[in-house]
């Protein structure tokens, strides 16, 4: 399948390894990945902070870039939630029937990464190898907007070598919430403290999720605490195979 990648602004800028893993994974599964460099941001930060007018051009931009895509892959549930939950209403408010139709037509072809794998391709075993103790955090939008349920866990359970441990309070918000972490920094820090405690109690070395943004928050706190837990977007766990892993001490 020809898959158009919407990498998201923060993965592009801050977490290129996530995008590289998505490309590797999809190509490994036999798909063609395309990346249009005209893409920037879905508008979520503006929309959710109250700058809804400023988000509108970003909707138009997204629709223009992807209107002819066979499938759009987005490695971020919150960006997909932004599109599904708000784009139809935003378009309707523009009194532009063409835009409303374009959004309606495009949205069914937009997939969060694990949705694409499990719901569209119908695969759970992607042939990955990841010999680490991992715990999975169910990000808010993945649970309550995309209703992913155990889809990401079904993929993780099939990874070779993985030691997957349950995260207590798996679906409780980590306190990120976009600009919430800045505007309500102290309350967000208290929420983060709860999440860090849960993650550390699992004894995992890696915390994963379908959203790098939540992981940036959780890992930001864990790193400050020198907790010895690192983050990996789920794509970075699903992409590597046994052939990729260089034996210890083999050097770069």
């Amino acid at each position, binding site marked *: 399948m020809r898959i158009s990648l919407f990498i998201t602004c923060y993965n592009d800028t801050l977490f*290129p390894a996530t995008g590289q893993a998505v490309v590797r994974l999809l190509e490994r599964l036999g798909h063609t990945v395309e990346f249009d460099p005209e893409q920037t941001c879905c508008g979520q*930060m503006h929309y959710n902070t*109250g700058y809804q007018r*400023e988000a509108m051009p970003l909707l138009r931009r997204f629709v223009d870039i992807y209107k002819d895509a066979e499938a759009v892959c987005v490695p971020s549930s919150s960006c997909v939630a932004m599109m599904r939950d708000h784009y139809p209403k935003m378009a309707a408010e523009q009194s532009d029937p063409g835009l409303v139709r374009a959004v309606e037509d495009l949205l069914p072809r937009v997939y969060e990464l694990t949705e694409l794998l499990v719901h569209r391709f119908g695969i759970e075993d992607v042939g990955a190898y990841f010999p680490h103790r991992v715990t999975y955090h169910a990000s808010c939008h993945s649970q309550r907007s995309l209703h992913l349920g155990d889809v990401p866990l079904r993929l993780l359970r099939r990874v070779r070598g993985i030691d997957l441990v349950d995260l207590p309070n798996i679906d409780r918000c980590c306190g990120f919430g*976009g600009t919430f972490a*800045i505007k309500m920094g102290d309350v967000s820090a208290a929420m983060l403290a709860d999440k860090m405690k849960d993650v550390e109690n699992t004894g995992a070395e890696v915390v994963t999720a379908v959203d790098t943004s939540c992981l940036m928050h959780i890992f930001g706190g864990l*790193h400050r605490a020198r907790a010895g837990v*690192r983050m990996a977007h789920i794509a970075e766990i699903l992409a590597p195979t046994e052939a990729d892993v260089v034996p210890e001490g083999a050097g770069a």
Partner: protein
Amino acid sequence: MTIRVSEADRAPSFQKAALPLLEDAQLRKNVRHATDVIQSKRALVVGQTPDWQDLRTAGSAIKAHTLLHLDRYLEQFEKACTAAGGHVHWASDADEANRIVVGLVKEYGGNEVIKIKTMTSEEIGLNEALEREGIHAHETDLAEVIIQLGNDKSSHIVGPAIHKNRSQVRQIFRERMNLPNLGDTPEELTAAARHYLREKFLRVKIGISGANFLIAETGSVCIVESEGNGRMCLTLPKVLISLAGIEKVIPRFQDLEVFLQSLPRSATGERMNPYNSVWTGMRPDDGPQHFHVVLLDNGRTGILADPEARQTLHCIRCGACLNTCPVYRQTGGHAYGSSYSGPIGAILTPQLLQMQHGTSLPYASSLCGACYEACPVKINIPEVLIHLRGRVVREKKSALDPEALAMKTAAAIFTSRRRFEAAQRLGRIAQWPLVSHGWMRNLPGMLGNWTRVRDLRALPEQTFRAWWKQREKAGANGSPTPSAPLRSARRIVEDPSHG
């Protein structure tokens, strides 16, 4: 018109009010414990209700329908209630409602009243208004007794004293009931409260209640409760005054079927409330001989006029959104500056106050959506929060506000590939004084709120798009760039700290 919601017009911003609460380890432990207990009970009974989602849909539909015909149903209620011997009063704001209640109490010659827990009376500041006229209001709901005797404020719409534990309650009772040897078992505490309250039930001749539901068809009022103290207030006094927001009306008696299933499950995790009282007007020689209903607007029609936020008025005050909210869990209810706390308070208070006060409240949420999922009448609270944030930005922010400037700049960057790529390059250059060993630990300005407790990884050498471009070029030359996961897998093996 003076719309007032508790003391929200004088309350500090949410982030300021939260600070001392976050410091209060006892309060935080109490709130965590209480909300965890209620939530697990709720999860159990909701799980045993196979048509739970249908109940939510039905509850939402009844409320949406009623709000579209609110004038008709309120007038129908007034007519039916009046025909059954009740008196209906209309109050446009808090002051008018207080004047009506104070006037009635004086008319019937009382200088004290007994009260069932009513958040609406806390909204309008009724106890204070009565006190100013020399009328003492005795709270009779156990939690409200604790709040009243402790000179405290309620912090939860269902369990106002949820932030207190047993030993704190004992301390209040010891001091205020003059019981120096009181123990802290539930039996001893309830026995003390019972003794304290019984005397008032038997003596005071005027009762004041709120209302869970007003039934238009029959003119009935419905109140659900757990203690039976409410039933005392509804049946023993000679005069009963019920205060109700206009959104409390439902069309038919039959509609109770839905709400009397969804409300107790959501509020206290019970399949049914222990006490369900429904009464219609007045009956000679049985119960109160004078019955008054005060219908309160106090900003509600303003909410009704906003189609996007109207669903706020679906609320049946079950408190499920508070119990599930990860923000409420940390701060408790006092941070919200009004009798309405948690996610519902964050949307209700600023709207009642016409967005003139409480404008930090729509931001007191990470938009995690747990409230919407728990709501028995399907109020999409995150959607309303975002809508209200839009109003805050449009109505309040000056163009020179630092946040507004940052957002407009970001918008300009995101609307152009050239500007976006330039900003990525510039960020990589500009960050160098802030970066130490690949991390930023002390950012300036608003971003400093992030780095006070969190590190931020420095912008990497290469963006994804730069990697892609390089890969395309190499691919065209027949030697593709080594795949990223290979490198990241290597890094995992080599460097367990991953940065």
